[in-house]
């Protein structure tokens, strides 16, 4: 009875799929990304590239790196110390970021703050996120001088942006009944946060902080190499760009890899325990 209008193709066959907006946008996204990828290769700057020899050379380099790791400009103790420096930079940026993000996300959660303020905080966070971390570190390095302060402050920005998003989403999922119960008992805004919101989200918040710490370790390595922030990243940069010592690069890569693996194992466990819905 609903056969009043049947879409047909030119050759008379009936359309089997009724294309909705989602499918159409999906298809266009894939098509546009594919086209842009092909265009991209025209834009590339191929200066001084000899593909054949580059590939064999890289294969050889990787072999030296991974099969013959050795230290020559650093002692083992120093290397471990530098890994410690990188971990500490990541830790400081994460912890300070978490404290600031906690207060900002109270202002960004729609059930705890008026809409006007949440919008301002969100725009602010979006802007922070758009500037790459390395630029933040370099900009702070001018004002604060090269050192741990510039590195930590620069890394702080993205940690705050990431955690504000995660925290405010966690706050928004707090049972409305809890907030109402505290409000009707005469609790002030701070009472609601302290005894209603915080206890029911605390473990969530902690695991988000740890996930960010894992990311920040990688960021801290990168900042050491690109912005001279110290730590193992800087040694990596020196080993490859100044000494051209692939064996040392290999050793440092292994050191980073081991720490990253450990952090990943812990964070996967945390995810399984606290976010069973998102992990398998």
């Amino acid at each position, binding site marked *: 009875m609903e056969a009043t209008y049947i879409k047909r193709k030119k050759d008379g066959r009936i359309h089997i799929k009724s294309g909705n907006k989602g499918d159409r*946008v999906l298809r266009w996204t894939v098509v546009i990304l594919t086209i842009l990828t092909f265009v991209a290769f025209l834009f590339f700057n191929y200066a001084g590239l000899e593909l054949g020899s580059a590939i064999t050379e890289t294969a050889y380099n990787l072999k030296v790196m991974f099969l013959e790791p050795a230290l020559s400009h650093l002692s083992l103790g120093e290397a471990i110390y530098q890994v410690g420096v990188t971990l500490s930079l990541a830790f400081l940026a994460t912890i300070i970021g978490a404290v600031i993000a906690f207060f900002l996300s109270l202002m960004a959660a729609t059930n705890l703050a008026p809409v006007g303020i949440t919008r301002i905080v969100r725009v602010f966070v979006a802007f922070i996120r758009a500037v790459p971390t390395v630029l933040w570190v370099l900009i702070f390095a001018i004002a*604060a001088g090269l050192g741990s302060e*510039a590195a930590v402050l620069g890394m702080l920005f993205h940690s705050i942006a990431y955690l504000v998003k995660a925290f405010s989403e966690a706050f928004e999922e707090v049972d409305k009944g809890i907030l109402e119960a505290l409000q009707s008992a005469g609790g002030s805004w701070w009472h609601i946060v302290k005894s209603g919101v915080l206890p029911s989200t605390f473990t969530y918040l902690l695991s988000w902080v740890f996930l960010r710490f894992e990311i920040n370790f990688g960021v801290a390595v990168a900042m050491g190499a690109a912005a001279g922030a110290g730590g193992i990243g800087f040694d990596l940069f020196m080993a490859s760009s100044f000494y051209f010592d692939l064996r040392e*690069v290999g050793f440092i*890569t292994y050191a980073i890899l081991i720490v990253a693996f450990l952090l990943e194992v812990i964070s996967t466990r945390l995810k399984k325990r606290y976010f069973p819905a998102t992990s398998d």
Partner: protein
Amino acid sequence: MNEKTLRKNRWQTVILLLIIIVLTYVSSAITSFNFVDGLVTIPKAIGWMFSNLMVTQETLDKLPTILEKLAETTFMSIAATTIAAVVSLFLGVFGSKTTKVNNFLSVFARFIASVSRNIPVVAWSLVLLLSFGQNSVTGFLALFVGTVGFLTRAFIESIDEASQSSVEALTATGATYFQIVGKAVIPQCLPQMISWVLFMVETNIRNATLVGILTGTGIGYTFDMYYKMLNYNAVALVTLCIVITVIIVDLMSNYVRKVIL
């Protein structure tokens, strides 16, 4: 919750906070990070930004060069992400529990993903720089490797999450492996996957700046050059261009995500 568990929880919290405070103290000692100095720096830095990071008329002359480099970087990140997504699609299908071909391939796919994800992009770009030289291909490959690692994990998770029952239904009708993957798994996970790809495009544009500084290509190199020449007005312009690009990409991918998910 009785009184005992409440008290136990409270103790756990106190101990945790103590550990965090001790760790903070230790790490600020290791890095000689000074909280007071750090706090003082923030207003100073913001003041400096407002007085020095201004786009002036004469820097606008440099806009065409900057935009050209920015386009190169943006295209490079998109290309790296898309091609990585194709590779990750295969690795993801092999690595997922529901669609794996055999155990060996599954472990192999997960291993590749884990190694390429955990070795930092910095190490890849520095090693590739040695033999590929100072051009876009170096940056492209460095981003590509990191993206494969990330996307494979994301794809494995979305395949595991989504397709259990439809795979079972198709297996019951006697469908072949390729029919199951092509008709059930991929269509079902595609929106989720595209959402991850778009997220990665945005991340890669930001990472490309970092890779560019290290390998001397694209917008990162432009930034580094002006930064070392102490031409802060040009630095401001470059930063502004990057911010605008990232925000545009972000808005576009948010729109797509809203429609397809």
